[in-house]
């Protein structure tokens, strides 16, 4: 393979130019915890590595009027240390913090986790549940897109040639809202999710659910927003019957594969279990005002 080239631009436009010049062989490097593994195994052979960690827009966490903006290259460790983001979006932060070890946390980013395109990515169901919006830059300028519209299949995204994600907006939540993310792994750490479930919801003063989004990971070719499940929760007090109906909606939304990490039957069943438990945790977090 030709000599690999590396650049660490300091502005978005410089990055766009370099990517454009790399004739399709360019790859964005944020944390690199997926990229380097795939390069070493030979699964990908990029010609040009564009390190975006020196571009302020991709590495800052800042409050905005309608939520928090998190740079695409911010590491899980850094986001985990940000008090107010962690308080308002516990689901997104715990999902990102579940990825790999402490060492992986020191590098892995929301942008990388999303653009790697793995159906089992941990942070993506949580971001979908939170309704996160990504800001994308590319040769034709900037645009925004919902997180659930980015991944189109295993390892594939809807980003066009030369585009990359700059940051994510975690939209402000109404009062008495919270969220949670759970995953099923055989060990207690270090595994890829066999099933992942993210739930974000809002309760009114009587404890009735007024808003809910449920997303699942590792149960379909890409992380999925299960609208039906959210609708079932809205209007209920999250009673056992409602939760069971919501769980069966989740099971219905699954079309997983058998692979060495899990079977179709197992993933489908556990998807319902985790969605139910995540809903209960999110509700508990609202009630306890956390």
């Amino acid at each position, binding site marked *: 393979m030709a000599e690999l080239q590396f650049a*660490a631009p300091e502005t978005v436009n410089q990055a766009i130019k370099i990517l454009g010049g790399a004739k399709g062989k360019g790859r964005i490097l944020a944390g690199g915890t997926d990229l380097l593994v795939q390069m070493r195994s030979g699964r990908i052979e990029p010609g040009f590595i564009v390190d975006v960690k020196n571009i302020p827009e991709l590495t800052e966490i800042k409050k905005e009027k309608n939520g928090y903006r998190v740079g695409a290259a911010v590491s899980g460790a850094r986001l985990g240390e940000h008090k107010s983001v962690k308080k308002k979006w516990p689901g997104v932060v715990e999902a990102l913090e579940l990825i790999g070890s402490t*060492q992986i946390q*020191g590098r892995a980013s929301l942008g990388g986790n999303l653009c790697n395109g793995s159906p089992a990515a941990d942070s993506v169901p949580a971001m979908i549940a939170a309704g996160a919006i990504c800001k994308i830059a590319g040769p034709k300028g900037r645009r925004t897109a919902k997180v659930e519209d980015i991944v189109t299949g295993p390892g594939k995204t809807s980003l066009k040639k030369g585009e990359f994600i700059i940051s994510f907006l975690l939209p402000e939540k109404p009062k008495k809202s919270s969220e949670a993310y759970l995953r099923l792994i055989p060990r207690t750490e270090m595994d890829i999710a066999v099933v992942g479930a993210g739930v974000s919801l809002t309760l009114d003063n009587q404890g009735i659910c007024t808003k809910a989004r449920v997303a699942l990971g590792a149960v379909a070719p890409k992380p999925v927003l299960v609208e039906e499940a959210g609708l079932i929760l809205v209007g209920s007090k999250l009673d056992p019957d409602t939760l069971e109906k919501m769980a069966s909606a989740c099971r219905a939304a699954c079309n997983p594969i058998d692979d060495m990490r899990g079977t179709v039957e197992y993933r489908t069943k556990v998807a319902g279990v985790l969605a139910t438990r995540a809903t209960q945790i999110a509700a508990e977090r609202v009630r306890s005002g956390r």
Partner: protein
Amino acid sequence: MSKQHVTMTVNGDPVEVLCRADQTLLDCLRDEMGLTGTKEGCSTGDCGACSVTVDGRLVCACLMLGVEAEGRKIETIEGIGESEELHPVQRHFLEEAALQCGICTPGFIVAAKNLLEKNPNPTEEEVRYWLAGNLCRCTGYDKIIKAVLKAAEEMRG
């Protein structure tokens, strides 16, 4: 074979090294700088034997390119206990028999020292989850966790 010139600080000393764009920080430390204390167990970020800190952040050196280290401060096992005295974590690993073959020990010591700098009074569970990325096949972890808790106790004074 075009190599890039990278300047970084390693264990407090300024270092200049030439490395290819695809060369990991781990390869740079071991092959270019001769610092073989950082070990390779898997090259995929799953074993933690190559743990180092970059600007105080605990990472796997095998999952970072050498060229990314430009201008950064790297701490490896060789930088710990350099002075007369071993670091408390190193001493307690010895006293508590927290190592057998020792291939994972450098990674554990870098990770444990980093933990105690951030959390001087961790619970057993916090230590176990912080170190979950450092695999050990000889000890079953029991004495490693005890050594870290004892070191924390001593460092709290």
